[in-house]
Structure formats: structure tokens, C-alpha cells
């Protein structure tokens, strides 16, 4: 896959010049992630974000049989955004590849460096991160509110988790 050509097709980077994307590929880490590989786990340290170039990832909470899928993140979308710019931050969700994928890693140091060089890319990435996070906060509030607005059956308290899953699926 020609990563540069792929980047040029991603709506999130529409407006970023070809030279800025070439510079990004010279400085950032591009890697492949195999289907089912764990990319991030709850509690992992790290403040970098991941831009999905190709493929897809499932974001989830919980463990074992009690899990809550929060989102599917595909090409052109961002992962790990909660930790960006927060020093010593730990991951608050688990991210697993659901198909063979290609990603690019970015952190605040790299964004600062590109910014100093006059690249327009950091602005687009920051704006995409902001809007992604706002949407996720909004979706979380809607889902939690949806569960709280109905009674939890005392005979089946775990039914609330099932309902939460339904709400996030919407």
C-alpha cells in the first residue's frame, strides 16, 4: 500500500499539503498491526495517539466475559486520544485490531516539532482529536443516561450492562 497516497484520501487530513504529509512520513512511525493484536490495554502508560490509515479496531472496556464495546474505529479515525498532552497518563480503554491494519503514531513532541517547522498538520490533527473526543463524551452521556432512565431489574442487575451495550451500539 502506498501510505502517502492513502493519507491523501483521508477526510481528516483534507487540507494538509502533500509536502506536510511527506514530512509526517519522514518523522512518524508507521506500522502494521495484525488482526486480533492488542494495540493498547487499560492502564498502559503512553500519551501518543494513533491515526488509523487502513483497517479497523475495536475499543472496549471491561474484562473476560464482562466487556463493553465502546466504538469501532476505522481508517481516517483516531485512537488513544484521551491521553494526548496528559503527562504520565494511562490508557482508559482497550484497543484491539479487528482486521489487519496500518497505523501511524503521533505524540505531542512530534506535533510540536512539525508545528515549529510550519507544518499545517498539527492543527488538523488537534481539531480531529477534539471533535472525536467531544463525540465520544456525548455518546457516553447518551448511553449512560439511557440506562439510568429505565429501572434496573433487581433479579437481573447485569441486565443494565446488556442495555448499556445496546445504547453504545446505537
Amino acid at each position, binding site marked *: 500500500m502506498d501510505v502517502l497516497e492513502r493519507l491523501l484520501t483521508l477526510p481528516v487530513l483534507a487540507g494538509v499539503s502533500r509536502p506536510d504529509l511527506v514530512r509526517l512520513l519522514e518523522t512518524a512511525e508507521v506500522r502494521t498491526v495484525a488482526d486480533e493484536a492488542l494495540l493498547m490495554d487499560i492502564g498502559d502508560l503512553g500519551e501518543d495517539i494513533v491515526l488509523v490509515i487502513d483497517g479497523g479496531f475495536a475499543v472496549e472496556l471491561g474484562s473476560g466475559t464482562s466487556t463493553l464495546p465502546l466504538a469501532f474505529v476505522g481508517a481516517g479515525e483516531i485512537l488513544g*486520544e*484521551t491521553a494526548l498532552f496528559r503527562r504520565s497518563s494511562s490508557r482508559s480503554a482497550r484497543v484491539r485490531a479487528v482486521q489487519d491494519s496500518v497505523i501511524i503514531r503521533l505524540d505531542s513532541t512530534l506535533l510540536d516539532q512539525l508545528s515549529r517547522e510550519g507544518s499545517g498538520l498539527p*492543527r488538523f490533527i488537534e481539531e480531529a482529536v*477534539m471533535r472525536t473526543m467531544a463525540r465520544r463524551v456525548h455518546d*457516553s452521556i447518551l448511553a*449512560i443516561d439511557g440506562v439510568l432512565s429505565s*429501572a434496573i431489574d433487581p433479579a437481573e442487575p447485569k441486565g443494565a450492562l446488556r442495555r448499556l451495550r445496546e445504547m453504545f451500539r446505537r
Partner: protein
Amino acid sequence: MIATDAVRGLARSPHFRGIPTDVLHAISMHGEVQAMQPGEILGTRLQPSEAVWVIADGRVEVRRQQGFKGRRFEVPVTILRTGMIFGHVGLLSEQPRMATWIAASQGSLIHFDRKSFERLVADRTVAGSAFRRALILALGSQLHAVNLRLQEFIVDDSGEVEKRRELLRQALEGADDTGQD
């Protein structure tokens, strides 16, 4: 004088900490200082999201709908303190407001209307970058808090209905928590 008040207000926010005064000044030029009185309604649930506020000084009560089976009431769920940001989730996600905000004390806010906000978000200067990063920090705190509390809810196997409802309420509270943890 008004601009000075706004700069001082932004400097109180943990999200704008460390940003040079001249940059805070450039950001503040996009906003307006707004005085608030206790009990004053600052924004109403389900209304279009048209503004973002930073609390320069004082406290703001967040009210959300609670209850079920057709008996839903707006109840206070949390108090936002000096330095916290509100209104940004609806504006950035292009969704109506999901809470009602009422002044809980006398104080002041820095108010960014939609036009000023979008201009700052698209700004290519250091001020734009500082503003975007402040919002990313605020949203990061919110998502982090929600996820941590949802995780507690998911792994809870107590089977106690009231405890499970309380864990969900706390998760909702986390969604309002833009204080840097």
C-alpha cells in the same frame, strides 16, 4: 481592564496553565467576560449548543434529567469550579445541550460564542494551538473519568441494584469533570 480580567480568568484554568500571558491575551480577545449571579440560568438542556464558557471565578451547577418510568426530573448532578470549561461538547459534536447550567455563586465567565470559538479552533497561530490543546486536555479528563467509572460498573459483580445505579451516576458525573486529574 476587561481583557485583563479574561486573561486572569484563563490563567486560573489548569488547562491553560503554563501558557504565556501574551498568548492568553490573544485567546481572551476572542471571548467576552460575563458576570454571573447565583441562580442565573446560563444554558438550558436541549437548546442548540451555541457557546463555550470558561469559569473565570465562581461555581456553576450542572443539572441533568434523572428518574424513570415517565417521572423524569432535572436534578443537580455536579458543581463545576473555577477553571472548568462547559458547553464545548455540544458545540464540537454539533449536538444540542445535554445539561442545564445554573450559576451557583456570584462570579465571572469567559464566554466564546460559536463564531469566536470556531475562529479560535481554526486559528493557525500559537493562540489557536493553545486553545485547542486546552480543550483536548479538558475532554481527555472527561473521557478518562467516564471510562474509569464505567470500568468499575462493568466489573462490579455485587448484584446490588442501587450500587450499580450509583456507579452509573458517577460515570455521568465524570462526563462533566473537566478538572485536570
